[in-house]
């Protein structure tokens, strides 16, 4: 099985992705959603909350598993994908698109320590 890994995104070993935009979008990878199976619930911070790179910022639950979400970058949350509260399956259907979770205002050099698409692809194959 092969998984989508968009070239322009950056990744955490724990399978979260971030864009390098300002604000940056954050979600979980295609590989992660496949491992979890049917996503049925997400718990996310609120707009205005601060998240910290490497720390848990929320929880994703599938039918069979509960999994912490780790922040790829630090910063203030500027938007939350509220569609996921009623349609958590968007995480399965479109993990890099409609299944996004947060938008965060990144600090300077926020993306330096993250995995490139190539490095992440290597990790999951």
């Amino acid at each position, binding site marked *: 099985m092969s998984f989508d890994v968009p070239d322009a995104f950056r990744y955490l070993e724990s399978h979260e992705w971030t864009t390098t935009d300002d604000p940056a979008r954050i979600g979980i990878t295609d590989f992660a959603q496949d491992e979890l*199976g*049917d996503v*049925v*619930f997400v*718990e996310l911070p609120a707009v205005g909350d601060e998240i910290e790179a490497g720390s848990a910022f929320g*929880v994703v*639950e599938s*039918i*069979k598993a*509960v999994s912490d979400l780790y922040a790829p970058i630090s910063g203030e949350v500027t938007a939350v994908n509220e569609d996921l*509260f009623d349609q958590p399956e968007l995480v399965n259907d479109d993990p890099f698109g409609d299944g996004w979770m947060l938008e965060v205002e990144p600090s300077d050099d926020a993306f330096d320590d993250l995995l490139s698409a190539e490095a992440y692809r290597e990790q999951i194959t």
Partner: protein
Amino acid sequence: MARRHPPLAEVHAAAGASVTEFGGWAMPVEFDSIRTEHAAVRESVGIFDVSHMSEIEVDGPEATELMDRLTTNDVEALAPGEAQYACITRDDGVILDDTVIYRLPDRDGEAAYLFVPNAGHDAQFTDWWREHREEWGLDAAVDNVTDEWAMFAVQGPDSPARIAAVTDDSVTDLGRFEHTTSTVAGCECRIARTGYTGEDGFEILCPAADAEPVWSAFDCQPCGLGARDTLRIEAGFLLSGQDFDPDTVPRTPYEAGVGFTVDLDSAFVGRDALADQRSTGVDRRLVGVTMRDRGVPREGYELVDDTGEPVGRLTSGTMSPTLNEGIGLGYVAIDHADPGTPVGIVVRGTEKRAVITALPFRSTSS
């Protein structure tokens, strides 16, 4: 201990199944998605490999007495071709396991039984049966035949049609908890109208060597232990080792909501303790719980009353694929056990609103 594998481990791997360890067995947990598999069983038909279940045969002149004294139900009531759900209890009435007992055709004029305890319990109960046979001086043979059999469950409203399409006998005439032998793909199988999904369905025991042609003959949605779990929770069925367990969740049949398996007129291990509990009543009992707030109930979550005081704990939980709400099974103090009673479920330190719900969460189609 080395992991045990069902006869079709390689067939399932080739079908893309992911595998989990359960009761010492490496079993398929998911073939496509739990939602897809669950829906197939609720709406049409699906097949499960449940070869991890234990099989023990008991026969001989005093087989009936041995079975009757080690299980809670009235084994003497069984005729050949009938089956019965029962608990295996210890002296204090605590459930060691639940099981289905099949009375087989008589052998040399003597009764013969096959009983099916849960995964990984075969050695334990073979010993338990033999120890009691010695203690009571009974004439009966006890054989652990788990590795000789594969077991499949074909479940769902379309399961009778599926069975009728692959068997050469009218197996669909079987009533609930009746069983017979029939040929599938040229292989002789024992087929019972039993299941663990809350749907109409059949369970098929076939010789391990014949597992592949029998499995393939049914040609329907393969389902893993993931969907088996969501289906049985919706149906309000207990999972051994999770909703009761002699070490971690010691419960009696009355507490666990399976008092209907207890025949106090039958003399079995645990009978006196259960007779006492029957007269004094239980302090806590198994209930269904439905989330009112968003969230997913899980095993181990605490239940609290409206003042935040602990009143019980969940032993199973999931997001119900059929109802699209969080549902769980657990034990609560008896004064909070009535359907409609509001309770809180503590999810990661936060109290969520929930309500005690009558079981099953979803009624059967049959």
